[in-house]
């Protein structure tokens, strides 16, 4: 075991996969010589050369499109989009192409690519370096959308993603990159795709969350236990699409109270899908409304710090919402 931050764990996962399989490569803007703007790919070009750690032109559609073509011809590319905010130019290649290679060719072709994208709010990030854009991809069959929070999960999921024969969109929360360190196994392991994780068992309510909000939810859960004797079960989807309905429903049916917390602007976010699954399939078990907490429906997180702080749900608001549901 080694103690690793999220950014280190992802780096290690990449490096290990590249060592183990010479068809694995990374590509994107600044990922080569400079080692990535977040330093996720640091050292990879030195170790694997300028092609397997490829500095691409500033062209996201090309990055994903070329990754698809590389995969069609025997490679396993991990394409980096420098910020999730800049994934829209690659949207067509992801949703119309990568997601459909297998289906449209009736299983003859597949598309083994991983697209990594740092997302989420970060001080100074503002409208175009802070977004949580995962919902765009969570209505696109053929894709898997992964958003881990903890280093060990992230490494195992990244390895699973790279080895998965279908395309995986891999969201990494920028603010979580260096937020904490964790023991991360050094032996080869994967964490399964399409499986949610119960971080904390509880009987009084279920809270589903991911990213930096998950950290706050877990903190709030401890507080609620200590201060109010309320035991909260905390579930992290890990794969946001397709959702692991079984785990979510099992928890909802057990606790009877259900809340989803994410930092995405609320209307149309993944929280809606999670909530509606519960509303439909755990209805008989519900002791209160299915609640959601998210960011306001504005086009982006403002640059000015007071505005950003106001925009993103904080511990107090999360705890308040949990109490509201507990007391319902």
């Amino acid at each position, binding site marked *: 075991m080694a103690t690793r931050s999220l950014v280190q764990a992802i780096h290690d996962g990449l490096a290990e996969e590249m060592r183990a399989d010479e068809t694995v490569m990374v590509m994107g803007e600044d990922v080569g010589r400079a080692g990535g703007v977040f330093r996720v790919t640091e050292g990879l070009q030195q170790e694997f050369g300028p092609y397997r750690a490829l500095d691409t*032109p500033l062209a996201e559609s090309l990055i994903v499109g070329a990754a698809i073509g590389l995969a069609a011809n025997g490679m396993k590319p991990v394409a980096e989009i420098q910020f999730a905010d800049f994934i829209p130019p690659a949207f067509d290649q992801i949703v119309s192409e990568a997601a459909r290679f297998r289906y449209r060719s009736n299983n003859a072709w597949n598309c083994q690519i991983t697209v990594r994208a740092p997302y989420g709010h970060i001080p100074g990030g503002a409208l175009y370096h802070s977004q949580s854009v995962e919902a765009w991809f969570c209505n696109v069959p053929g894709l898997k959308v992964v958003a881990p929070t903890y280093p060990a999960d992230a490494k195992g999921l990244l390895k699973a993603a790279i080895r998965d024969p279908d395309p995986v969109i891999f969201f990494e929360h920028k603010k979580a990159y260096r937020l904490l360190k964790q023991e991360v196994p050094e032996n080869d392991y994967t964490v399964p795709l399409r499986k949610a994780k119960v971080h904390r068992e509880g009987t009084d309510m279920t809270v589903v969350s991911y990213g930096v909000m998950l950290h706050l939810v877990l903190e709030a859960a401890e507080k609620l236990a200590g201060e109010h004797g309320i035991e909260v079960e905390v579930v992290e989807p890990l794969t946001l699409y397709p959702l692991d309905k079984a785990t979510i429903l099992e928890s909802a049916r057990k606790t009877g109270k259900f809340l989803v917390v994410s930092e995405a602007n609320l209307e149309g976010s993944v929280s809606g899908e999670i909530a509606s699954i519960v509303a439909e399939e755990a209805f008989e078990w519900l002791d209160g409304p299915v609640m959601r907490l998210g960011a306001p429906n504005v086009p982006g997180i403002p640059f000015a710090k007071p505005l950003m702080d106001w925009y993103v749900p904080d511990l107090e608001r999360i705890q308040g919402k949990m109490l509201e549901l507990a007391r319902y």
Partner: protein
Amino acid sequence: MAIRETQRRHEALGLDEDDLLRMYRHMLLARRVDERMWILNRQGKAAFVISCQGQEAAQVGAAYNLRPGYDYVYPYYRDAGIVITLGMTARDQLLSLLARAEDPNSGGRQMPGHFSSRELNIVTASAPIGVQYPQAVGSAMAFKMRGEDGVVLACGGEASTSEGDWHEAMNFAGIHDLPVIFLIQNNVYAISVPENLQVAGRIVDRAAGYGFPGVEVDGNDVLAVYKVAKEAFERARRGEGPTLIEAKTYRMTAHSSDDDDRRYREREEVEEWRKKDPILRFKQYLHGAGVLDDAKEREIEEEIRAEVDEATEYAENAPYADPESAMRYVYAEEE
């Protein structure tokens, strides 16, 4: 005299009579299948037709340089001539037209013209215009990384060059001297939109801006296309990088069976181009070169008609996929 000159033309290209007849057959088969598809559409049996008619020379001339199953190909929806040259059959086309389970492209999931063959390295195609180009340069990069001499042929109409994807791919190909050939079949129209509202300057001139050669060619002259493509393939195999080929041609049919081209182009223009029909033209060459005579011509026509008849019958009788099979292959299935 005329004969000797034309002979010199194909001989200079290293093509023998068998080659010429094969090319002719490919072109003719593509044409006859296409005509049959329109008939089936008019009969209400086929929901959608999109044609290669008029572009067979550009397609077969270029594709004749491919090594099937080794080089990679990204055809566009009119490229029946390319996939037939690679080995697809009339039956394949008809199965696809009628959306039967056995359709090798997609099992009836996709519209006709969305070609795919894992064995032939025909990368599964789709409808959004231009998406193939970044993919094509990616596949070319893989060849380069492995030190193989494979070449990627990336195809599209003139309007596909208007999409950003085309440019991003041209740039990447130029940066890394990738073994890729951009074959643009400029057939003057994009549905109704004429070239002058589609393309600023000349497509062929764009290559220079990316530091690699661009060649314009008479797309209705199969040997001319073969020649420039051959040079491009050789260049690519030698590791010298990409080539852009702009084949000037014409779409002889409406855009598709859903289109009525009388809304936007004059009949006279269409008639003018009918005279330049690439199959007619190649036939004249073959007659002139003594490769074809009337008897042989009829014989080939008969063979092809039989092939198309058989294919039609086979496809009409072939079953659809199970409706519930629509759920399959969203993701890899567990073994």
